[in-house]
Each structure stands twice: as structure tokens, then as C-alpha cells.
């Protein structure tokens, strides 16, 4: 590490400096952090490692190989774009949190061992929650707490898994873990726990609700940060530890399909994007599960592109939120008149995510599709085709259509601020560049790329797919069969813990207290009730917490002695 800092340290130092400065100085400084980080990364000698001895283990704080470096570069780029996008925000907490968050993501993907990974895993959770808190409403506070609990729980499960894994293998190095059949051995428990922890972070269906819950609740700029890092660290972790695990093909397919139905009927456009994000991660997980060089390359490059085009879409919605105060489709429409640049950038993002040739999604997603069919997963391939059509519908058409076109809502907000436009412009540029000239991206992939994206065949296939998907949408529109945007809330798996669980436990509690006012309806009430119960028993005045007379203590002691003596004489 001659003369170089550990890459995450650049961000952490930047965060410390951002905490001490303010105003334009801080803005300038924050922009410099990812640039300095990039320089540091550029000059990092190849296959650098930074080791630390702990107990019988070697911690590898930094491991630079092709896979980790690609993600590190991605996160530097994403951090720069997100910081630029948020440059007008004068909130110290968000500034510091953003840098710590980005640094933790860099640290996580460059961690060579599982304990270091765990540390950054939790740092990601703790630092990112500030973007949701910063919204400042009671609603966002509750959301933030739910988010934090789930994220920290993921870390805790990871740690437990690491412990088993370390015990079984004697090593904490983060390499390929694989998934042995579950036979109750430490190795199997460890692998499954680690996998579950990653699934939570990757928002795999039924573990996903923190994402669709929290991302639409964050600040206009916060969601851009959030969308870039957490789930992609999980994708990285899967690629590193579980490449070629068959289960992932199934899970990824489900993940690509499940959210598209919700995306069609969701009214909040940032929540639509959250579902869309799950869908894209589904594609990546399929690629990782297939596990061939081509599939992994596809998954990783798609992660790279997704961060940029999904960030671009979130930025355009952030700009809309910033100017109009809402991202609900039912309240928007016709904004292209006064926000032409934002509209244009949003369209670039939409074209990219739809995998239109010459835009970035095309060069990466098709690799996964080809791998799926070549490795003999025909059903998966068909499902992914279906999901691709769905992407066109909800991300390619729905997002730009309802925000910027559709019927005129009469709103004429100002164009987004310059820094936002610059950030979106940069992201759009990257989308087009990677789409038209993917060779630099391909060169950075973990395996040598033997894949030609721009064959007539690929382009034709994609154009047919896209054109007729769009045609179908138009036809449905014209015939009035397309579902309207309705201000509503669609329940999803979170219903289980926000409604069903409280209702069930509420019922149980209601039995105990008989005449409580019916079954509790919301999670907050349940939590407060459990809390009250705990406090009643454990608070300073509670059973265990209160002061006890000496005689009582002596009685306990005697009882314990009596119990032991009984055992001794029995």
C-alpha cells in the first residue's frame, strides 16, 4: 500500500472533513472526495491487500481484484453523481452520512474477509438511515426505524453465519462459499445464514419490503444515494460467495417476475422504481446463479449499468419531487413543458433500462439472457423475456409517461436546478457511452468477454421485443383497458408484519385483556403495547427493576441453594 490509502478511508476522511466545514467549501470538498478516491484507486498497485491479524484470523481490509475493483469504480462514479445531484442540500447530517455510506459500500466490496465485510455491512445500514430520517416527518421516522431494524438484523444474521462458517472452515476469508445441502452441520448453517443475510440486503422477495417501504420515503436526493449502494453490495457478495448456486436461478427468476405486477398498479413513481430495482436485481441473481463466465459477466455489468440508469431515473423523479412535492402518478402529468431537460434525461434512463440497443441496459442484460438459454434454462429464459417486457411497460413507459406526459396536470414547475441537471446529464452520458461503446466496461469485467452485443440478430430480437411490448401498451391504452392511476396503497409482503402479525398478536393480547378495543390494526400500536408490557415488567418500577428488600434477595439465594441441595440428595 505504498503511498495509497485504503479506498474506504478516503471517504471516511472526507466525511470527517465534511462534518467540520460548511457552505460552498463543504460542497467543493464533497465533490473532490470521489475524485480523490478515484485517483487513489487508479494508483492502487494491482492485487493490493492490506492485512490485519485478529485472533487466529487474518483480516484483509483491502483486496483489490477485478471483481472488487469494478464495484469500487462503480461506487466512486455513483457517489460522484449522487453528491453532485445533492449539492444544493445544506444538511450536514446528510452530507456526512452520504460520504460514510459511499465509503462503507467501497469498503464492503473491497473487504477480503467476512468480518471486515460485516463491519461495512452494518455501517451501510447505520449511515443510510439518515436519508430517510432527514425527511423529518413522523411517517418517515417510523419507516426509518423499520428500515434500520431489518438492515441491522441482516448484519446480525451475517455475523452469526460468519461464526459458523469460520468454525467449519477455519477461515474467515471471503471467497466462494457455495451452498451445501442443509444437514445441520456448522458449514451448512453458516452458508445458509450468510445467504439469508445477503438476501435481506438484496431485497429478495419476501425479504424485500424494507426497500419498497423506505426508498419512496427518503428525501429527493437521499433515494439516489440509497439506490446506488446497499443492494449492489449484496449483489457483489452473492457474486463473490455464491456464484453458480442453482437456488439463485430460481430465486432470481421469481425476483424478476414478482415486482413487475406491483409496478404496473403502483401509483407512487418512486415506489415503481423500487419495484423495478428488485426486478433488475432478479436478472443479476439469475446470472450469478447460472455461474458461467458469461453469466457472471452479465450480472456484474448489469449491476454496473443498473446503478447508473436506475440512479438516473431516481434522479429525475427526485427532481420532480423537489419541484412539485410529489411523485404520485395520479397528481403528475405534462411536466415536459416546463422541465424539458429532466424529461430528456429521464427518457435516456427509460431507454437504458428497457435495454434499447445503443443504451446501456442492452449490452449487459442480453448476456444474462444468452447465458440462460445456453446453459439450458428454457423456462427461466421465457420468464426473463416476460420480465423484460414488463420492464418496458413500467420503467420504460410508465415512469416518463405519467410524470412528464399523459394528461396535463396543469403544473408548470421550474426546470431542475443546475447541479441536478449536471448530475443527470453525466449519468445519461454514461448510459449512452456504455451502451454504444461497451468495450471499456467489458474490459473491466471479472472474466474475459467473448460476447458481441451488436449482432443483427441481437438487435432485431430486442427491437421486436420492445416494439411489440410498446404496441401492446398503446393498444390497451386505446381500448381503455389500461389500468388507471389511482391514489392508493398496494399491500405487499410487508402486510404480514405491519398488519397480520399485529392483528394476530393483537388478538392474542385481546384475549388476555378481554375488553380491549378490538383487534389492533397497526404495527405501531403492537410495538408500543409490547413495549409497554416490557416496561411494566422491566422498567425501574417493574418487577425485576424495582428495589427489593434484602429479605427477598436472601430468599432467592436460599431458594437456589435449596434447589441445588435437592439435586445433590436426590
Amino acid at each position: 500500500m505504498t503511498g495509497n490509502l485504503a479506498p474506504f478511508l478516503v471517504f471516511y476522511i472526507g466525511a470527517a472533513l465534511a462534518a467540520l466545514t460548511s457552505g460552498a467549501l463543504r460542497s467543493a470538498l464533497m465533490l473532490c472526495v470521489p475524485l480523490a478516491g478515484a485517483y487513489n484507486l487508479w494508483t492502487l498497485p494491482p492485487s493490493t491487500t492490506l492485512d490485519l491479524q485478529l485472533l487466529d484470523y487474518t483480516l484483509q481490509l483491502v483486496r483489490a481484484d477485478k471483481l472488487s475493483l469494478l464495484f469500487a469504480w462503480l461506487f466512486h462514479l455513483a457517489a460522484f453523481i449522487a453528491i453532485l445531484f445533492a449539492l444544493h442540500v445544506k444538511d450536514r447530517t446528510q452530507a456526512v452520512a452520504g460520504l460514510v455510506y459511499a465509503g462503507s459500500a467501497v469498503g464492503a466490496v473491497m473487504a477480503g474477509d467476512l468480518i471486515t465485510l460485516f463491519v461495512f455491512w452494518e455501517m451501510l445500514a447505520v449511515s443510510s438511515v439518515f436519508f430517510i430520517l432527514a425527511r423529518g416527518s413522523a411517517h418517515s421516522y417510523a419507516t426509518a426505524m423499520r428500515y434500520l431494524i431489518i438492515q441491522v438484523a441482516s448484519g446480525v444474521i451475517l455475523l452469526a453465519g460468519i461464526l459458523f462458517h469460520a468454525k467449519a472452515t477455519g477461515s474467515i476469508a471471503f471467497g466462494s462459499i457455495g451452498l451445501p445441502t442443509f444437514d445441520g452441520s456448522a458449514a451448512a448453517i453458516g452458508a445458509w445464514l450468510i445467504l439469508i443475510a445477503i438476501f435481506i440486503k438484496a431485497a429478495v422477495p419476501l425479504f424485500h419490503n424494507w426497500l419498497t417501504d423506505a426508498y419512496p420515503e427518503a428525501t429527493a436526493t437521499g433515494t439516489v444515494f440509497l439506490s446506488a449502494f446497499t443492494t449492489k453490495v449484496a449483489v457483489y457478495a452473492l457474486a463473490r460467495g455464491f456464484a453458480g448456486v442453482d437456488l439463485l436461478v430460481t430465486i432470481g427468476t421469481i425476483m424478476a417476475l414478482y415486482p413487475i405486477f406491483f409496478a404496473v398498479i403502483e401509483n407512487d413513481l418512486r415506489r415503481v422504481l423500487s419495484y423495478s430495482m428488485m426486478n433488475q436485481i432478479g436478472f443479476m441473481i439469475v446470472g450469478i446463479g447460472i455461474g458461467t463466465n458469461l453469466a457472471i459477466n452479465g450480472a456484474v455489468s448489469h449491476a454496473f449499468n443498473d446503478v447508473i440508469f436506475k440512479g438516473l431515473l431516481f434522479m429525475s423523479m427526485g427532481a420532480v419531487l423537489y419541484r412539485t412535492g410529489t411523485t404520485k402518478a395520479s397528481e403528475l402529468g405534462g411536466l415536459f413543458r416546463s422541465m424539458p431537460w429532466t424529461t430528456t434525461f429521464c427518457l435516456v434512463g427509460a431507454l437504458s433500462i428497457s435495454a434499447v440497443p445503443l443504451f446501456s441496459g442492452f449490452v449487459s442484460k442480453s448476456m444474462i439472457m444468452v447465458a440462460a438459454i445456453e446453459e439450458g434454462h428454457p423456462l427461466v429464459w421465457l420468464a426473463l423475456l416476460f420480465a423484460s417486457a414488463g420492464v418496458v411497460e413500467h420503467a420504460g413507459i410508465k415512469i416518463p409517461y405519467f410524470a412528464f406526459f399523459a394528461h396535463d396536470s396543469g403544473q408548470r414547475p421550474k426546470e431542475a436546478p443546475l447541479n441536478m441537471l449536471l448530475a443527470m446529464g453525466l449519468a445519461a452520458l454514461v448510459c449512452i457511452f456504455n451502451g454504444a461503446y461497451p468495450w471499456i466496461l467489458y474490459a473491466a469485467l471479472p472474466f474475459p468477454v467473448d460476447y458481441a452485443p451488436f449482432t443483427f440478430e441481437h438487435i432485431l430480437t430486442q427491437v421486436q421485443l420492445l416494439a411489440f411490448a410498446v404496441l401492446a401498451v398503446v393498444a390497451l391504452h386505446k381500448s381503455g383497458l389500461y389500468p388507471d392511476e389511482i391514489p392508493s396503497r398496494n399491500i405487499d409482503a410487508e402486510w404480514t408484519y405491519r398488519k397480520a402479525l399485529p392483528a394476530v398478536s393483537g388478538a392474542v393480547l385481546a384475549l388476555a385483556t378481554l375488553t380491549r378495543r378490538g383487534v389492533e390494526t397497526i404495527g405501531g400500536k403492537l410495538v408500543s403495547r409490547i413495549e409497554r408490557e416490557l416496561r411494566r415488567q422491566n422498567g425501574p418500577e417493574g418487577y425485576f427493576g424495582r428495589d427489593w428488600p434484602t429479605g427477598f434477595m436472601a430468599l432467592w439465594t436460599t431458594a437456589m441453594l435449596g434447589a441445588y441441595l435437592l439435586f445433590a440428595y436426590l
Partner: protein
Amino acid sequence: MSVLAAAATAPSFAFVIGDHLPILQVIVPLLGAVLCALTRRGSFAFAIAALVSWSLLGVAIMLLWQVLGAAAPITYYIGGWAPPWGIEYRVDALNAFILVLVAGVGAITIPFAYRTVGKEIDEDKQSWFYALFLLCLSGLMGMAVTGDAFNIFVFMEVSSLSAYALIAMGSDRRALLAAYQYLIMGTIGATFYVIGIGLLYVVTGTLNLADLATRIGPAFGTAPQPILAALAFIVVGISLKLALFPLHLWLPNAYAFAPTFVTTFLAATATKVAVYILLRLYFTVFGGAISLSDLPIAEVLLMLSIAAMFIASILAVYEDSVERMLAYSSVAQIGCITLGMAIATRAGLTGSIVHLLNHAVMKATLFMAIGAVVYRVGTSCMSELAGIGRKMPLTMGLFVVAGLSIIGVPGTAGFISKWQLGIGAVDAGLWPLVFVLVGSSLIAVIYIGKVVEVAYFREPGDNLADARDPPASMLIPMALLGAATIYFGLDTTWSAQIADTAAQILIGGLK
């Protein structure tokens, strides 16, 4: 004996001192206490106490050095009487480790006493205070160093009696009640212990620990029940002393109302020495002679440890007084230590022993930090400490560092302990315990998080107008132990490795 033999061939001064290190551990603070009692000025007494503590640490480190270099335990015969008739001091890696721990905490925290004692204790009582402190120190060192069961009792009472008096010196009147309760419970505990030892003496005719270990076995064959009864008495008696849940009820008030320095010192040392005694008797004395499964001690200990880790942690969450919160956290952490004991494998015991050290270091830091807050603000109630993190940045910064260690964040000492205990649990096939460890850490996140939230995310109130970091004499001990919290989280040469050696000694003697 090897050391004595070496001394005979080369009778230089250094070697003479080197021969008598074990007894110095007790004699030096005892004489210091007498000297303190004779002085009439608090600052003189402080100087004596500081000198004694520091030299004691030196002696303890030398002793540890000797032990680690020696093949067999170092023995020392009081008055030249050979055991089992005379009293033997017997030092191996385990109790040398404990000695360094106790002396180290004493030496590092003693500067902290100067200001707090000056503020909390009347001038005319200060020299008594230091005398009592040195007595307590001497008692704790004596418990750790001696190899004689009855001698343990004597030193236990020396340390306990002085601790009761020290706690009673707290400024709140509730300190008196806390001291009284502690006195009753402590005496019951010690008496149980001495009853157990008495029963052992009746059946074996010896009080020397090493001798007991060899004689219990044959005696068990003829009369098993008195020995099991003795084990029961001893375990319960010491459980009281180490505040094993649910025998911990005396502890929160004793820690909350004692003078700040006393809380810090006792929290870091008293319960740890009690744990050592339990380890020593349970594993070396009984474990070497009888099968430990004759009494369900491990099972009971396991259940109580789990209960402690959860219930005491939840109690901590609901405390408004940070001192009481930390006291409950101590009960929970002692649960972690006894958990490793209940696992009773080499890895589990290593976890226990290393957590003795790590918990002492981090809890002393926490109690000193909050003591500094009390020194400046006059209260440890969270409701009155909003924004304290901005007013006392260094103090609360150290609080957070030690708090992270309580949670078990990697890079801090707490992580090493939890990890080691977790490995021990998986090793022994008790893998659900991993979730217990992790779960109690999650609760620790909440109670430490509450303090952080109050300290950093709220605007300071008017009552904190002149709060600022304490003087260097308080800050430096805090910083030293705070740094140690990090150091022991990164380098385990002096913690986990010695703990492993000690665990081997304990496990090695098992029948």
C-alpha cells in the same frame, strides 16, 4: 520451587524481590492502607494509594512474566510452612492474569479518584477512603493469589467489608441502604462459601486447593453427598458475590449510589475476582476430582446466564439513570462470562476469561465517562443529559467507543469476547447460543443507542451551560482504558492468548 532454588544459588537483591512477588501483592496494599489511615490529609493519602497501586501493577506484571516463562505454577509458602499445613500462594497463568487485571485497573483508574473523591468525600474522611480502597485492593489481590480455600474467605471478607464501607460513603442517602443490603447479601454469600469449605474440610481434612483437588476424589467414593452439598454451597455463595442473575439484586443500587471511583473500581474488579474463584474451585478443585455432571450446575448456569443476558439487558434499556443502566449491563455481561463457563470447553472458557478482562476494561471506561458527567453535571439521568455529547465531546466519545465494545462491534475488545464465546458455543454443539449472544448484543445496541441519541441528537439544555470535559487527571485514565478497548480488539496477544493458556489449565485438570 524452581524460583526459590534459583534464588539460593544467586542471592542478588533482584532475585530476593523476585522470590517474594506473590506475598507483595497483598502486603504492599495492606501496609499502604495502614499508612493512609495514619495520614490526616487526603492528598497525602491519595499519593500513597497511587504509589501503591502503581507499584502493585509492576509487581503483578513481573509475576505474570515469571509465570508465563515458568513450566509449573509459582508457589510461595507463607512463613516457610509447607502445605498442606501452611498457607500456600500458588500462581499460574490464570490468576496471574487476574492479578494483572485487578492491579491494572487499580493503577490506571487511581488518578481518576483524585478529583472525584475531592468532590464527593468530606476532606476529613478522604484518608479513610483511600485506606479502605487499598484494603479492598489487597483483599481482591489476596483472593486471586492465594492457594488456600480458607484464606480466600478471609480475603473475600477483607475486600467485601471495605467495599461496603466505601459504598456507604456515597453522597446519596440511598447509598447507605445499598451498602447495608450488599453487606447482608455479601455476608450470606461468604458464609455459604465458608460452610462449603467447612464441609470439604470435614471430609478431606485439608484446605489447600491443590491438596483438595487430589483428596476429594477418594473422599467422594465414601461420602459423595457432603461433597455435593459443599459444591452447592460454594457455587451459590460465589454466585451471589459475582451477581449471577437472579442473585444480582444488590448490585444496581450499590453501583449507582457508590462514590464514582468506587463504582468504577468495583465494577471492573470485584465481580471478576469472584468469577475467578468460581472458575478455580469449580474446574480445578471439583472438576479434577468428581464428574461435574453430578450436580446440574452447568445447566442451571446456562439457563441463568441466558436469562441474565436478556432480562438484565432489557432492564438496562428502561433505566433512566445511566449508572444503573450500566450496572444492569454488567449483570448481562457477567451472564456472558458465566455462559462460557457453562459451555465448559476450552474455547468457551477462553471466551469467559478474555471477557473478564475486556469487560473490566470497557465497563471501567463507561463508568468513568459517566462519572465525569456526574462530576460536571451532578446527575446521570438521561432525561437531563440531552446534548451532553457536544458539551463533553472527549468524555462522551470515549463512552461511545466503550459502548461499541459492549455491543460487540468488530475492532473493539467486546467483539473478541463475543466471537470467542460464539466459537465456543459452536464447538460444543450448542449453536443456538450464537443467537443468544447476537440477540443480547442487539439489545445492547438499543440501550447504548439511547444514550447516544440523547447525547448527540438533542439540543443541550440550560442545565449543561458549564459542562465541559473533565480535567486531565480524569480524562487520561479514561482515554487509556478507551484505547485499551480498541487495542484488545485488534491485538489479542495479551488477552485471548493468555486466556487460552489459562483455559487450558482449567480444562486440563478436568476429570
